[in-house]
């Protein structure tokens, strides 16, 4: 592809990040198949925010849509990063868990239903603290129960990133799709700076942040399965590709021996160089499926 054509594609692209959660979810379905469940007109709101003087939102920042992708049943759950940082409260958590549970129930009776999670989230909503944490534990349990039947695909596209407990939900997913703008990690830079000091992590160092948490790095180290441009077409195509691929033989979070060895091989007397890590974890490993640049294949697990 020529550079000129790339430029044209870039100009003509429809940004995925700039869409709101509802539009993002809808854009992924086959035309005319999506319908929203427990939408804003149902007015299921957080019961805890008004008690603290915070205005709730009629969808609690979580959009659930059911329909078809590539002609197959699918559910998409989109978190709205613009409402409370995409954080999980009781209601948004219950919507996400219930969607996964229902996809599992359908899948168990033969209607295989994939789940796509659009994660723009800082994790637990602190105004609902323990109910947010409990919801995330239940979301994780629901992902684990669904993924033997149908793929669970986590997409981290926007600049909010995916942090806190929800990074574990991403980690449990069958596949992770990221953009270069997106970040994925357990603890954000500000939290680390607060807890462990500026010498550990300077949260104003943007280059450092993206070198560690950024989509390009996660993909290059085999921790994400697809790296896409901020382009609705590309995000959709990646998701359709992964749904067609189906359930992985061994999920990444079950490949314990491989990753444990990799951690043992690191020298923690110094900080790790993200570039070196790409060389160690990335290309070179067998990736027979061709999707994951540095992904760990099932074969590697068996050898170890």
């Amino acid at each position, binding site marked *: 592809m020529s550079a000129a054509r790339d430029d044209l594609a870039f100009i003509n692209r429809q940004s995925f990040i700039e869409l709101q959660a509802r539009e993002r979810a809808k854009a992924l379905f086959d035309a005319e*198949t999506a*319908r*929203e*469940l*427990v*939408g804003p*007109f*149902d007015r*299921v709101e*957080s019961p805890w925010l008004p*008690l*603290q003087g915070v205005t709730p939102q009629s969808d609690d920042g979580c959009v*659930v849509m*059911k329909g078809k992708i590539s002609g197959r049943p699918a559910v998409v759950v989109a978190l709205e990063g613009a409402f409370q940082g995409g954080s999980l409260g*009781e*209601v948004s958590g*219950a919507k996400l*868990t219930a969607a996964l549970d*229902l996809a599992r129930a359908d899948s168990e009776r033969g209607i295989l239903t994939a789940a796509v999670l659009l994660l723009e989230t800082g994790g*637990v909503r*602190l*105004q*609902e*603290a*323990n*109910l*947010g*944490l409990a919801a995330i*534990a239940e979301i*994780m349990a629901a992902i*684990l129960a669904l993924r033997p039947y149908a793929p669970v695909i986590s997409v981290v596209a926007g600049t909010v990133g995916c942090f806190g*407990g929800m*990074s*574990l*939900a991403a*980690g*449990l997913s069958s596949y992770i799709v990221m953009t270069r703008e997106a970040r994925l*990690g357990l*603890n954000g830079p500000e*939290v680390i700076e*607060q807890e*462990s000091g500026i010498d*550990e*992590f300077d949260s104003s160092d943007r280059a450092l942040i993206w070198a560690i*948490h950024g989509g390009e790095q996660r993909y290059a180290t085999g*921790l994400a399965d697809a790296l896409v441009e901020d382009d609705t077409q590309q995000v959709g195509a990646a998701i359709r590709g992964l749904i067609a691929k189906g359930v992985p033989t061994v999920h990444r*979070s*079950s*490949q*314990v*021996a491989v*990753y*444990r060895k*990799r951690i043992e091989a*690191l020298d*923690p007397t110094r*900080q*790790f160089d*993200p570039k070196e*890590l790409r060389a160690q974890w990335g290309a070179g490993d067998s990736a027979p499926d061709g999707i994951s640049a540095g992904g760990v294949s099932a074969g590697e697990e068996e050898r170890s």
Partner: protein
Amino acid sequence: MSEYTGARGTAWFRALTGNLPPMTGDPRSVLTADASIGDTRARFLCVVPDPQARFPCARHGEVGLEEAYTLATRVREVIDSDQNIVKRPIIAIVDVKSQAYGRREETAAIFLAAAAAADAYGSARLAGHPVIALVVGHAFSGGFLTHGYQANRILAFDDDGVMIHAMHKEAAARITRRSVENLDKLGKTIPPLSYDVRDFAKLGLLHKLLHVENPDHPSETETRKVRDELLAAIEDARRSPWDLRNRLESKEARDTRRATIRTRALLETQWREEPGQTGS
């Protein structure tokens, strides 16, 4: 309010396993042993502080990369070896400060390590192992998600030294722009905000609160009592479905988590409707 020391985890691990030496070959921050409980054997796991741990941000009882992968390994070992026999109970003794907050951890994808441990516990539960979490001290945030929160049944000591929460109090106050005093006050009327385990019990997530006289120094009588409670929880788990629905069925949950129950019911109804029938 109690400072985290991590001493309780070690104390209860020793008491409940009858001072068995922990399995060798693992980082010293993870204690594992197979010990008798009733007429069965169970795998006991505990994360404890190791001031000499290889990773500097995981030396004070945090769950870091090595802790998470060790837990995952030791739990998967049980799943693999019990495939065709009665599933051994797995008991997570929980006294964790938090997840590890470090740059090394983020670079080496602690999110995946934590997911791997949760995957192992959750997979054990789905495979039919009774997984019981016993919270004897602190259970914070990512640390608890990694070690304990995938259990079929959660037991906790009814004690001021027990704290289950999404974030440490000072940090939560700072981020929500409140004073610690204000946060404490709010916790009295808004149970999910509270740092008191008795308020946590109101959320309906616990199987049971256990009263123990001296949680720092388990006596023989108290150890026996806790063991009996663990056995009862194991039996209860064996009789029940392997998902987490019990966290919504308790009397407390039916009250405090009404919004969850309502949301789930509504979503299920709409899910089953044929396309075109919904108004929105």
